[in-house]
């Protein structure tokens, strides 16, 4: 565009109206909203400028959660949606707040409407005794999800944050780190803002191939907490001078 057109356009804006600082709300589908992580994420993101579309199979629990969020945050835009496909269709960002063994089935269900959208993988692919990862060495739940949704922008986030830590993201006056990994810079930047809204310090760990490290990290933390019988209000913090 020529300089003349750019200046003309700026004049048009000035003549027509005052600058409006409006921002169209991003719609976020949280699938598995009534699980411990889903509920924690839903309540945390209700603080932000988002439109939340919550889905879970148990309708009563979902209704209770929605009402709880509306009571705590009267100005929040939050709605229970019957169907994960419809929630994902309306959404700009889809958070799969489900265990690893449910992720694949869910991904195939929403694949068509998740096309070109940000899909957040929060899962840690652990076995039933929580003592090892079930994904192949060198792979990760997030990378497997990316293969199932090749045209979506899969981002790994919230897998290194326990549900309990959403209520206490600051421990010893230090804000817990929450690691994020993804291949699409714009998608990662968007998810970074979600992590900040939730109260954590976002740490951009790298491309999606770093997910296996992040999932391994959380396996370690889970094992330590279980072995020492410590609570779940814990997390990671990188300290440096």
């Amino acid at each position: 565009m020529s300089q003349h057109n750019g200046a003309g356009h700026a004049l048009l804006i000035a003549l027509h109206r005052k600058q409006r600082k409006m921002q169209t709300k991003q719609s976020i589908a949280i699938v598995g909203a009534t699980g411990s992580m889903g509920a924690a994420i839903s309540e945390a993101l209700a603080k932000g400028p988002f439109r939340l579309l919550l889905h879970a199979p148990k309708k009563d629990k979902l209704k209770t959660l929605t009402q709880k969020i509306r009571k705590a945050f009267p100005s929040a835009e939050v709605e229970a949606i019957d169907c994960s496909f419809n929630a994902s269709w309306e959404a700009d960002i889809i958070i799969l707040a489900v265990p690893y063994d449910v992720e694949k089935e869910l991904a195939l269900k929403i694949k068509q409407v998740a096309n070109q959208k940000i899909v957040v993988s929060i899962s840690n692919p652990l076995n039933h005794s929580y003592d090892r990862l079930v994904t192949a060495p060198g792979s990760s739940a997030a990378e497997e999800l990316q293969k199932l949704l090749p045209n979506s922008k899969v981002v790994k986030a919230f897998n290194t944050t326990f549900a309990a830590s959403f209520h206490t993201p600051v421990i010893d006056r230090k804000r817990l780190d929450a690691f994020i990994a993804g291949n699409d810079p714009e998608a990662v930047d968007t998810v970074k803002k979600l992590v900040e809204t939730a109260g954590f310090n976002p740490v951009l760990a790298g491309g999606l191939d770093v997910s296996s490290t992040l999932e391994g990290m959380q396996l370690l933390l889970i094992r330590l907490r279980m072995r020492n019988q410590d609570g779940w209000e814990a997390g990671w913090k990188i300290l440096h001078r």
Partner: protein
Amino acid sequence: MHELFFQKFNAMVPLTGEEEEIMKSYLTPKKIRKKQYLLQEGEVCKYIAFVEKGVLRAYNVSDKGGEHIIQFALEGWIISDLFSFLTGEQATYNIDAIENSELLLISKASHEELLRTLPKYETYTRLQLTGAYIAMQRRLTSIISLTLEERYTYFTSLYPDIVQRVPQHMIASFMGLTPETLSRVRKRLSKK
């Protein structure tokens, strides 16, 4: 979900099955409710929207709060703030839904990639833009040289669906009239 998009696309530029799959991989399906915004002025327009189902409108708002509708988009139409989309500058349009709608969005990144890799998309884009320019020229000519009755008749003959689905005050806004003036125009036409 993509039927109308490919019907329209193929009517302009026939695609092979493989090319359709490539094209589909770049489209973002988005459901939007009545009165929900797709874009607000001041933001950067990130998408071109194809209307698979529903009706959208693009408009700006004066300092006094009056809405001036620039464009409607029914099924098969495309809507965007093209200046903002192409330049990354702030949009002057608001775009929202008049009915619950189903859209297929093409992001800037998808658009650029398709222009680079799918020659038929470039042809499609050229035909869309030339079609839009011709429509705009026709509209400008009608505003300058036709009476209000002739403009309304021309508009409704081109888009008979719009009158059934869009409130009268919005059609008035689009024509640059008050609702009362449009009502008088319609009365005069009905007496003929």
